[in-house]
C-alpha cells in the first residue's frame, strides 16, 4: 500500500496501476527523534503514522510542495527505507504564476509523472495501460463529484451535517478503494435523501451516524480555511454553536475539485487539470486564491471565516498577514494556530466564543 500526503497527488496514477493507496492524515503523536520539535507537526505525525504502519505501507509518494514535505520524505527515506524494501518518491510540483498555465510547466510536470509511473512499474512489477488509466480517471471523478454533493447539502441545509463529518467523508474517500467509496457514498446520499437502496448500507449507516448533527444549532454560518486542522477543532466550533457551511481545506473541499471535470484522457490533461485547480497557499497565487475564497464564502453565506494555521507552517502564517489586509474588511476572520493535536482546545474555546459573539 502506498501512502501519499498532498491533495495535488494524482491518485489516478496509483489506481490505474492497480496499486492500493491511502492518504496520510498523521493521526498519531508527532515523531520526536526524526524531525525537530520546531517543525511542521503534521509532517512529524505523518512520519509516526508510516513508521507505525510499516507492515502495511510499502511505499510513499511525497510532493515537494514545501520543506516540511521534503523532510518528511527525507526522514522516511532515511529511517524507513534503509531497513526495509520501501518505495520512496519525491514528486516535483510546479507553481503556476499569475493564473497562467505555461506550456513548459505542464510539460515539466508530465515528465515528472512519467518518471513516477516508470519507477512504480519497476518497483511493484505492474504495467501501465491507457484503458485502466481512463477507468481510474472516471472513477476518481465520480468520487469527487459525490463528495461535492455532500458539500452542496452542507450549503443548502446548514446545520444538518457535522463539519467534521463531511471532512471525515473526504478522509474515507482518500483511504479506501474508489469502487468501495462510490458505493458507500451513493448509499449515504440515498439515506440522506430517504431513498434507501444503499449498496453498502452497513458502512453507510455507520458513516451517517457520524455525519449528522445531533443538535439544532442557532449560531453563525462559518467557513474553514487554512492548513490541515485537527477535527477536534471543528467539533469545538460546532459545540459552541457555530454552523460549518463549507471549507477550502486541502483535506476537504479542495480535494473534491480539479481544474476540469471532463476531458482527462492523457497525462497531459491530468497534469493540466491538477495545476488549474483553485490553488493552495503554497502555489503563491494569492489573488486567485482569495478570489475563490471570497466567492465560496459568498455562495455559502458564511458570516465568518475560521482560518487555521499549523504551528511552524510558513505558508499559512504569511498568508494570514495578507488575508488580514485583503479580506478581513469584507468578512470577519478568526486566526487560530494549533499543533495538529486536540491538545490546547480549551484555550481556543474562549477565542472562538468571543468570535462567535462578535459576528452573531
Amino acid at each position, binding site marked *: 500500500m502506498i501512502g501519499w500526503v498532498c491533495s495535488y497527488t494524482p491518485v489516478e496514477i496509483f489506481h490505474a496501476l492497480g496499486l492500493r493507496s491511502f492518504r496520510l492524515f498523521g493521526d498519531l503523536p508527532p515523531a520526536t527523534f526524526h*524531525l525537530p520539535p520546531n517543525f511542521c507537526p503534521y509532517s512529524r505525525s505523518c512520519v509516526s503514522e508510516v513508521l507505525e504502519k510499516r507492515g502495511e505501507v510499502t511505499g510513499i509518494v511525497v510532493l*515537494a510542495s514545501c520543506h516540511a514535505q521534503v523532510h518528511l520524505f527525507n526522514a522516511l527515506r*532515511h529511517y524507513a527505507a534503509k531497513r526495509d524494501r520501501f518505495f520512496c518518491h519525491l514528486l516535483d510540483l510546479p507553481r503556476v504564476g499569475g493564473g497562467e498555465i505555461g506550456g*513548459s510547466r505542464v510539460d*515539466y510536470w508530465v515528465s515528472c509523472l512519467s518518471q513516477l509511473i516508470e519507477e512504480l512499474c519497476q518497483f511493484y512489477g505492474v504495467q501501465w495501460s491507457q484503458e485502466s488509466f481512463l477507468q481510474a480517471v472516471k472513477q476518481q471523478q465520480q468520487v469527487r463529484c459525490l463528495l461535492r454533493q455532500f458539500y452542496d447539502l452542507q450549503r443548502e441545509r446548514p446545520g444538518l451535517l457535522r463539519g467534521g463529518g463531511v471532512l471525515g467523508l473526504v478522509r474515507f474517500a482518500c483511504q479506501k478503494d474508489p469502487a468501495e467509496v462510490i458505493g458507500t457514498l451513493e448509499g449515504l446520499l440515498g439515506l440522506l435523501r430517504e431513498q434507501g437502496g444503499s449498496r453498502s448500507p452497513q458502512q453507510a449507516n455507520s458513516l451517517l451516524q457520524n455525519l449528522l448533527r445531533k443538535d439544532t444549532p442557532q449560531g453563525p454560518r462559518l467557513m474553514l480555511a487554512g492548513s490541515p486542522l485537527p477535527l477536534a477543532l471543528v467539533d469545538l466550533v460546532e459545540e459552541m454553536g457555530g454552523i460549518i457551511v463549507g471549507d477550502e481545506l486541502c483535506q476537504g473541499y479542495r480535494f473534491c475539485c480539479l481544474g476540469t471535470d471532463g476531458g482527462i484522457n492523457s497525462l497531459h490533461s491530468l497534469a493540466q487539470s491538477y495545476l488549474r485547480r483553485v490553488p493552495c497557499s503554497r502555489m*503563491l497565487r494569492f489573488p486567485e486564491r482569495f478570489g475563490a475564497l471570497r466567492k465560496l464564502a459568498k455562495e455559502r453565506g458564511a458570516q465568518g471565516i475560521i482560518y487555521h494555521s499549523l504551528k511552524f507552517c510558513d505558508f499559512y502564517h*504569511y498568508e494570514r498577514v495578507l488575508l488580514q489586509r485583503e479580506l478581513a474588511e469584507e468578512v470577519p476572520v478568526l486566526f487560530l494556530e494549533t499543533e495538529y493535536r486536540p491538545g490546547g482546545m480549551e484555550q481556543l474555546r474562549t477565542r472562538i466564543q468571543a468570535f462567535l459573539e462578535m459576528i452573531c
Partner: protein
Amino acid sequence: MDLYEFMRGMLRGQRWGKVLSSPLTYQLVEKALLLARGGFRWRATYLMGRFALTQTRRAYTGKVPVVWTSAFFPVEIVWGLGLCPFSPEVAAAFITSLGFVDRALNRADQDGYSRDLCSFHRCIAGAAADGYLPAPAALVASTHLCDGAPLLFQNLAGHYQVPYLLLDVPYQSTPEAERYVADQLAGIWNRLSEIAGRRPDPSSLARAIDYSNQFRSHLEAVNALRCRVPAPIQGSEMLNYLYVFFAGQGHEEAAAVFGCLARELEDAAGCEDRERFRLLWLHLKPYHRGELMHFLEEAGCSIAFEEMSYVYWPPLDPERPFHSLARKVLSHFAYKPLQRRVAVVDALARKYRVDGIVHFSHWGCRQSCGGSLILRDALQEKGWPVLLLDGDCLDERNEAPGAVLTRAQAFLEVLEGRKAACGGMGEQ
C-alpha cells in the same frame, strides 16, 4: 578590525531608520572606510565593504531601478540589465550587526508576523513597514532553499505595489527541469527589462556571466588555500561576506573581492595560532551580539570551512546564459534529497580535516533545520561528531544563550576525548 564593528562605531547613537535610509550615510561611511582601510585584517574586507556601501547608496538614491532579490536568486540576471540588486536578507544581517534589529522585529510582531517565522524575513517585513528600505521597482524570488522569502516577497509586492516575479525551481535536475528553469529565467530577464525600461542586451548579460565565472574561480582558489592547517582565515570571517555571495555574483567588484582574498591568503597562510579543534560550520552564524562565536574562538576552535563557501555549481557558459544559470540553481546540494547534502558535508569534512561538525540551527529555517536530525544521524553513522546548536541568527529572543554555550562546551569535551583517543578523524 571588524567591518561591522567599524560601522557600529560610525552609527552609534543615531536614529536607525533615518540613518539607514539616507544615501548620505553610505557616502560618509564609504569615505570613512577609505581612511580606515589599513585597519582591516584583509584588504578584501575593505573591498567588500566599499562595494556593498556603493551599491546600497545607489539603491537609496532611486536613480537606478532597484530589484529586490531573494538569497539564492541568480543575480547575474539583474547585473546583466544594469539594474541595482538589493538583497534584503543581507540587509537584515547588516541591520542586526549594527544593533538595530529589535525595532524591526517588534514592528513585524505588531503586523502579525509570527515569531516562529525566520527572523531574517521578519526583520525585513518590519523595516519595510517602517519605510526604511529602498523602494523596489520589482521583487524577484526563487523558490529553492527557502519557503519564507517567496511568501514575504508576495506580501511586500502588495505593500510596495510593484510586480513580483517568481522563479520556480524544481528538485529534480533533469534536462526537462533545466529547460523549465531556463525558460523562466529568460522570461524574468525580459520582464525586468520592460519594468526598468531597458533594452535587454545579451552582451551585457554575457559580461555578467563572465564576472560570475571569475567570482567562482577566485572562490575556488580561496577554498583551496583554506585546506592548510592551521586555517588561514576563519569561517566566521567568511560568513561576513554574505553580500558578495547573495548580491554580488555577476559584478566585477565581487569577483575582485575574492581575487584579492586569494592573493592575501597565499601570503598569510600559516599565520594563525595552533588550532585546538578544527570545525566545519553548517548553515549561517549568529549576527547578533551573542557570545557563541567569541566563546568558540576563545576555546581554540577554528572554523576551518563553512558549507556556504562551497562551490557547488559548474562554470557558466556565456553563450547559453539562461541554461547555465538554470544548471547553477538546480545543482545546489542542499536542494536535493538529503543524502546529497550528507555526501557534500562528509567530503568537506574530510577535505578540510576537521575534528567535528557544527550545525547552527537557525530557528525559522525549515530547509536547513528541518533535516538537521537526519543529517546528524547520517553523519554520525559516518563517524563524525556532530553538534546541533539551536539558535537564531538575528533574534536573540529565540535563543537560550546559556544552553547554547553549555552544549558547545560539552561538544568540545567530546572532541577533546576523541582527539586524545585517536588523534582526530582528519588525521586518521
